[in-house]
């Protein structure tokens, strides 16, 4: 066996490449050039929607910025919060909407109905609001079993009761067989903002503590395993839960020291922290050893070659709070039934701005970047 025909040209290639590299000056200069490129206004290059546009990573962010925000532009939308804050008369309302397309519809620990109610309740709660009223829209596929629909709707009724909200309006559409995947649900919700706190992803300041409310990644891994592609069995269940009382407890304990609360759904904790770092112009430094992850989640993530930091949760939140109140807030979260296993996982720092850094459990450092699309399993 001999190596091929291009051997001779390698030397020339290499010399040319080295000459090119010298023009680049130093690694630092290259990194600065890259950060400038990343700050440019995003463009959607694809001609069609791909699955990556729905995965919550960079492709989703680009689509939202370049298509939706561009067309609908207004200051409230541009904040890109979990919920918009609107004034009606003297009242301040939080307003949000979300669509649910999970597959399978039923999974250990819940079903699409829990997600649809809890997801919208949580988007209102992390905005600092008291969730009040929800709407529910259903897109049903011809042939979908009525018994399944009843199960989903009963679950939604129970979840609404548990969260203290009422589903006060709704809509139903049926599409032909093959035009939808069984059942899609869209909920919208309004909540009352009667506290004076200002929560904003851009409010994080150097020195602030970053808290997660419990073990991460349970929901995403449960759903991946429920799809049956892996033939792995586990006792893991989804973490879907309403977070409105937990949010209230955090605000009671931390008051104005609470800077940001976000529920770590699609894209996981890593995506939330990136949004915080970028909006605040600060660095977020995470200590990997402090991040709570169940062994089952670690195991499945190892098998798949994915990182639990990017796996979706449906009942966990990330709170960034001022150092002075960090201990009180952590104690309040841990005392709450939904906050078992909560931990301070990191700190906000001033440099390098916009980046999330991880101090690995192994003793090294690395970046935690936004993903482009879904985390893809590695081949070997």
């Amino acid at each position: 066996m001999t190596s091929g025909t291009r051997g001779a040209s390698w030397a020339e290639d290499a010399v040319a490449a080295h000459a090119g590299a010298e023009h680049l000056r130093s690694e630092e200069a290259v990194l600065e050039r890259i950060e400038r490129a990343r700050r440019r206004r995003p463009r959607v290059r694809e001609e069609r929607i791909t699955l990556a546009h729905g995965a919550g990573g960079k492709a989703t962010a680009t689509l939202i910025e370049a298509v939706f925000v561009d067309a609908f532009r207004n200051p409230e939308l541009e904040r890109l919060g979990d919920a918009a804050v609107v004034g009606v008369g003297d009242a301040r309302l939080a307003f949000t909407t979300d669509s649910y397309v999970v597959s399978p519809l039923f999974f250990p620990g819940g079903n699409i109905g829990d997600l649809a109610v809890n997801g919208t309740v949580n988007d209102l709660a992390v905005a600092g609001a008291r969730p009040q009223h929800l709407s529910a829209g259903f897109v049903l596929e011809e042939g979908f079993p009525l018994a399944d629909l009843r199960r989903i709707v009963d679950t939604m009724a129970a979840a609404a009761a548990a969260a203290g909200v009422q589903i006060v309006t709704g809509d139903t559409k049926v599409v032909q067989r093959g035009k939808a995947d069984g059942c899609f649900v869209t909920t919208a919700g309004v909540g009352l903002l009667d506290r004076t706190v200002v929560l904003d992803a851009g409010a994080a300041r150097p020195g602030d503590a970053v808290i997660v409310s419990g073990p991460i990644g349970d929901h995403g891994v449960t759903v991946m395993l429920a799809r049956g592609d892996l033939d792995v069995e586990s006792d893991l269940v989804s973490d879907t839960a309403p977070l409105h009382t937990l949010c209230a407890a955090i605000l009671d304990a931390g008051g104005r020291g609470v800077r940001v609360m976000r529920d770590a759904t699609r894209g996981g904790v890593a995506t939330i922290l990136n949004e915080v770092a970028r909006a605040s112009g600060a660095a977020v430094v995470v200590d990997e050893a402090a991040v709570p992850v169940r062994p089952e989640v670690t195991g499945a993530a190892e098998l798949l070659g994915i990182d639990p930091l990017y796996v979706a949760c449906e009942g966990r939140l990330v709170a960034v709070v001022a150092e002075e109140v960090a201990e009180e807030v952590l104690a309040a979260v841990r005392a709450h039934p939904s906050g078992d296993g909560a931990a301070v996982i990191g700190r906000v720092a001033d440099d390098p701005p916009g980046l999330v850094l991880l101090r690995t459990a192994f003793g090294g450092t690395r970046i935690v970047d936004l993903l482009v699309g879904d985390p893809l399993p590695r081949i070997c």
Partner: protein
Amino acid sequence: MRFVDEFRDPEAARHLARSIAELCEPGRRYAFMEVCGGHTHTIYKHGLEDHLPETVRLVHGPGCPVCVLPMGRVDDAIAIAEHDDVIMTAFGDMMRVPGGRGSFFDAKAAGADIRMVYSPLDALKIARNHPDKRVVFMAIGFETTAPSTAMTVLRAQAEGLENFAVFANHVTIIPAIKAILDSPDLRLDGFLGPGHVSTVIGCRPYAFIARDHGKPLVTSGFEPLDILQSVHWLMRQLAEGRCEVENQYTRVVPWDGNRRALEAIGRVMELRPWFEWRGLGFISHSAMQLREEFAAFDAERLYDVPGVRVADPKACQCGEVLKGVLEPWECKVFGTACTPETPIGTCMVSSEGACAAYYNFGRFSRSRVREATLLADPVVRR
């Protein structure tokens, strides 16, 4: 988690790091190539370079199977997938690899039926469930994944499953290492041998690297402590004036490899006269195709594969990066025109690719980061 945490113990890492530092000769710089993309991923994911002295550099080699796939083969695969009766199946990190006219994800969005699988056996299952379609498995990878492709073909044959086929892109590691060794600008002091490939081929095939080329090789596992220990062993060989093939990954790699896996490959596949590698050009006897006997399962024979040849984009320096001549950040388009969301070169696609690993995990100034992590002691108290 048991069987994981033991291999990631920071105290053991610091101990190994000290041993490595003690073996450094003053004024000498060391460069070791990790051949395998899995190693590259581990190195970046755990921030392993923070444990190495500044004079010891890890150079990322050509062992990411996605990264060495030429654009033309992606276009060929998409051409097969575009047949109405075809369901194309592929591993996850194949989905975003750009061909001359887009990736599998793009082809899927345009209407082709392309599905992600975890194993070729999943593709077989799809074939059983869709007798009216032909299910084609996009087979990629080194000797690591070739046995599972071979076994799947044998099973399809045993079951008489006529609607299953393989588009074979399996490559072999030794010719790639030879190509690296023949490179006139080689400035390496040794190799970290590919762990997974070696579970199949064993350690014997690497003998020529030490014997003929005077470079030590240590076959290494994939946990961060495995890699640090392997670097330590390489340093020890250099310090003691030895030049050998050593096996650090004995818990998985038998010295003679896996005979049954090799037999399965040999039964189903044969070497191609030549194959094009992304960035490395044509390398003779470096890839495998299905034997004539299995023609009924060979998508290349069943479909009129265009055999597209797409020249790598001019700006792309994947070849230099794969050979370890350039650091990822030294490439002209790194991080600006070529990013994980819009990759020009394949090194930017797979998380095992040197460029993607550097962009996603290592794209910062180490001095600034050290300062930041020291200033902001992350955890108040557990």
